[in-house]
């Protein structure tokens, strides 16, 4: 089944292909986990990942041996790639959480299909986000001094610093994410255990499944726990990325000192996180031949999230330009002008252009024609759609 992206699925459109039943779904999905020999493409992908990881290790060694001068940061631009990457990774993680928690809470009929992907991504992204600030520090070995513990120096961390709020938020977020992921995946682990053929796999997944038997009481408890955690995670993810925004908004630096930063950063997290989930879902769908399970229904829903995220981010961009213009601060004005038309203009225009493209692409109403691959730009007839 080809991917046909459309905004116009009928309300009764099937979530999965008509020939998918609960039993076939379990066997289908578990079969891909319990496979004996991973396919070649998997090894290729894994090899590339390991190679990239090896590069990371070499780079970290290089960094820790030579000092953080290797980042290219300077005075006055004392923050560079490490912080940018930190914000990026945490945005991905946040996006994953948002997709999984908000759709669970809104009782979407389709959460499980993409939630695993989203949560797996968030679980991978969160440690990356945690690693970056450490690689950013001038004395990385002492990162734990940000942790409030009773130490021989008799010094507690400084509660007024946004960096400390950030550290606390990130730590809580990573811990919560692990638990959230685990609470959600528990029944699936039991299913895989039940379908496992070899003894070692049965023991491995048996331990992970924590004795899940699928009783009504267990299901009820799992649902309650998952719902509560979703309810906690949704505001938490907003808080974690807002606090990242506060790292900047709390500073005096021109271009940073802006009250809209916490929601702005959250908007950015939604759009970039969702975008990566869509990309990963496409890969997984193709690689594991899950066209029956991951249908255009899912892509349609996630595209809507992208659209909303893009609109929110557009609003933030416009507001970010408006603030300095409306204000009287020369430094703010200069910074804003330089960002849009100075050295960083190409990057700014690329981001802005992508954003507008996303909105334009999603916002154009087109009638899907069966069997037609829609990969091009929107057609001529564009009409806004109502976002509901």
């Amino acid at each position, binding site marked *: 089944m080809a991917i046909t992206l459309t905004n116009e699925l009928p309300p009764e459109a099937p979530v999965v292909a008509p020939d998918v039943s609960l039993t076939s779904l379990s066997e289908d999905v578990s079969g891909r986990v319990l496979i004996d020999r991973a396919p070649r493409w998997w090894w290729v992908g894994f090899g590339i990942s390991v190679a990239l990881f090896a590069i990371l290790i070499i780079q970290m060694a290089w960094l820790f041996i*030579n*000092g*953080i*001068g290797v980042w*290219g*940061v*300077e*005075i*006055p*631009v*004392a*923050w560079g790639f490490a912080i940018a990457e930190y914000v990026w990774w945490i945005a991905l993680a946040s996006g994953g959480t948002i997709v999984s928690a908000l759709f669970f809470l809104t009782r979407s009929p389709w959460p499980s299909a993409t939630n695993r992907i989203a949560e797996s991504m968030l679980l991978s992204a969160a440690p990356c986000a945690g690693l970056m600030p450490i690689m*950013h*520090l*001038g*004395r*990385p070995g*002492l*990162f734990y*001094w*940000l942790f409030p513990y009773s130490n021989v*120096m008799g*010094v*507690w*961390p*400084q509660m*007024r*610093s*946004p*960096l*400390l709020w950030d*550290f606390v938020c990130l730590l809580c977020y990573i811990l919560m994410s692990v638990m959230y992921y685990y609470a959600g995946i528990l029944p699936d682990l039991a299913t895989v255990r039940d379908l496992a053929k070899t003894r070692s796999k049965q023991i491995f997944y048996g331990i992970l499944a924590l004795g899940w038997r699928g009783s009504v009481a267990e299901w009820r408890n799992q649902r309650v726990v998952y719902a509560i955690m979703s309810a906690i995670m949704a505001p938490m993810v907003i808080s974690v990325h807002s606090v990242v925004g506060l*790292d900047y908004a*709390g*500073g*005096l*630096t021109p271009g*940073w000192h802006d009250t809209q930063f916490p929601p702005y950063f959250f908007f950015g997290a939604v759009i970039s996180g969702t975008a990566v989930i869509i990309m990963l879902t496409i890969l997984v769908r193709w690689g594991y031949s899950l066209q029956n399970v991951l249908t255009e229904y899912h892509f349609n829903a996630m595209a809507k999230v992208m659209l909303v995220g893009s609109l929110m981010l557009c609003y933030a961009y416009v507001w970010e330009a408006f603030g300095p213009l409306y204000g009287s*601060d*020369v*430094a703010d004005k*200069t910074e804003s002008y330089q960002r849009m038309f100075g050295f960083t203009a190409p990057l700014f225009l690329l981001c802005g252009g992508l954003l507008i493209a996303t909105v334009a692409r999603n916002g154009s109403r087109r009638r899907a024609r069966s069997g037609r691959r829609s990969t091009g730009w929107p057609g001529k007839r564009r009409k806004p759609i109502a976002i509901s």
Partner: protein
Amino acid sequence: MTAATHVYGQAVEKLFDLGKADRIFGIESDLTSASPGSLAYARQFAAARRPTETGGRMSRVYAIESTPTLLGAKADHRLAMRPDEIVAALRCLAGLLGAGPGEWTQAENAHAAWLKAAADDLNQNKGRALLHAGREQAVEVHVLTDVINHSLGAHGSTINLIAPIEAMPGSKQQSISELAADMASGKVDTLIIIGPNPVYDAPPELDFAARLRGVPFSVSLARYDDETAVACKWRVPASHEYESWSDARAFDGTVTILQPQARPLYGGHSGHEILAVLLGDSSPDSYKLLRDFWQQRAQEENRGDFDDFWHKALQVGIVADTAASPQSLTPKADTITQLQGTSAAAKPALQALFRADEGNWDGRYANNPWLLEMPRAFTRLTWDNAALIAPGTARRLGLKTGDVVEIAFAKAKLKAPVYVLPGQAADCVTLPLGWGRTVSGLASGAGFNAYAARGADTAWADGITSLTRTGETFRLATTQDQDRVLGRDLVLEGELDQFNSDPGKIVPPKKTESLYPPFQYPDRAWAMSIDLDSCIGCQACVVACQAENNVPIVGKDQVLAGRAMHWLRIDRYYSGSADTPDIAFEPMPCMHCEQAPCEVVCPVHATVHDHEGLNLMVYNRCVGTRFCSNNCPYKVRRFNFYGYANENDRPAESWNPEVTVRDRGVMEKCTYCIQRIRTTQIDAAKGDRKIGDGEVRTACQQSCPTQAIVFGDRNDRDSAVAKRKASPIDYVLLDELNTRPRTSYTALIRNRNPAIKNSET
């Protein structure tokens, strides 16, 4: 023939009294930067230009120059002129002031109105005015300057003539040319070179290196393996001035006895010792040599008991009554008539000006890393020299900063990167000397050697036959990219009459509202005040701070990467047109804000406030988030991106033991020299007394020749700093951020001549 012999028929030197001078006319003057006595002159100069302290009076400075000088930067009216225009302008001025024939005023001059206004102003201040021409100016310029000074009645009031204090006044150029000729003809069989480096800096046509190799026995006494030492047959390590006994004469003739501060670190010998060996003393001792000399001289001069004399001279630092006495001389009658025949200097299309470098000087300090990394006052360049070109000329030639050009002279060629310098005269290319050293050392390979093109007859200016772009570019390491304040209230300036009538117009009233109650500092409140009028941009404070606070050097690559470590920098701002800008210098140490933005964002309490208002760095707590630097609106924090201090290969003795040497990954910044504060506090506590005003002096304050920087206790109403801060033109930077800096500034006041329209300045 020098100007003095031309005018007076004998060699003389001049002493200036800038305290008495209400009008100063500088002709590319180095009076406050490099001339003998410049430190004293700078101090007098600044003291007469602090209207808050002089009761609303200040001197007025005019400057005409081909390349910016420190005095020119302070001038109330400054014109950039080619050397030939300078001669024409001085002739016009002489004519206007009656010092020269009246027809000199008839010659066409683009700046006639300006010169007329200046001449009238000088004329009204007879006896309280002076002209000064820099050493690089042509003889004719010096002659005209002397004549005009005489007609202004400067001699005897603002200028005193004294007998030359040099033992052998006269042309050094002639002396070395004669030596080279003798070497070429084989008349020299022994050459002993004590100190200088002629292989590097002698005119190229003398071919000194080759001729030196032909000398059978040559000895060099030098501190480094310089170009001359390498070319000599024998090398003797020289001791530093701080390592041996010696004596010297100051600019006014006063004699001082130089005492060593340390034993020779590298077994060096002084010139006295070498000369004594040549005289047959096999084991000379510089102390004994000096003492014997002074014993004999004291006896000749009937100075009484020698031990008393000697100890007094050492204690006071100078030998009493050795200053030269002023002479009364008048210019020879035919001075002007001799000039009348000579036409004004020729005007080549492009000309090169050879000028000593601000840091390396003639090259002798090129191995001092502090000076190599010291940003030059105007260019802010470190680690390189560059061919300085005016913006208009650069536009015409299609050049921009960093382009490498080939500059061809009649006999020589050299390649140099271009730096476009506002305030430079059109068609003039300034080539700083003292760079392009070839023998091993920090400076080897840094910059280009302008001596290679500097002939004996064209020592200060030479016509350029062609200047061509090579197409190459060169990365010049400047420490300041932004030349303008761009509407920010960084440099507040006003006019003197404005200061006298309504100073509130110059400095808007301070805003002090806050939601929070202010912190109280009941005991002491350390504070600093910096007078922008007094800062002449000499960079002494920058290097003093670096020495005092163990600030490492980082090298050209790291300066290029934006990681220079200077705790104190002197920002240079231009206003007005790029070709004739107004120039302002602004020293920027840490502001020690009472509501410091850096403190709230540090997650580990590495930067905190103390009860006396100091913004402290606790190096050991710093983990290097660099948030404090991001949040500092003044950008005065410095970070050890690499282990600079560890990488600096310097003897242990050169580090200040009172100050922690910072490790890699740690933030640092100006501490108001906290080590000095604490030492004084401990001392005062032991004596159970209060710390007096002026007892704690920061390194920058101590080294400032003009007393632009004042430090002390703000709570003490009688302290110098409290008085400065009470000035109506005292202001703080970026007041709107409500950071409440402890470092405040006194606004820049210019004393413009109402007769000169602003458009012409």
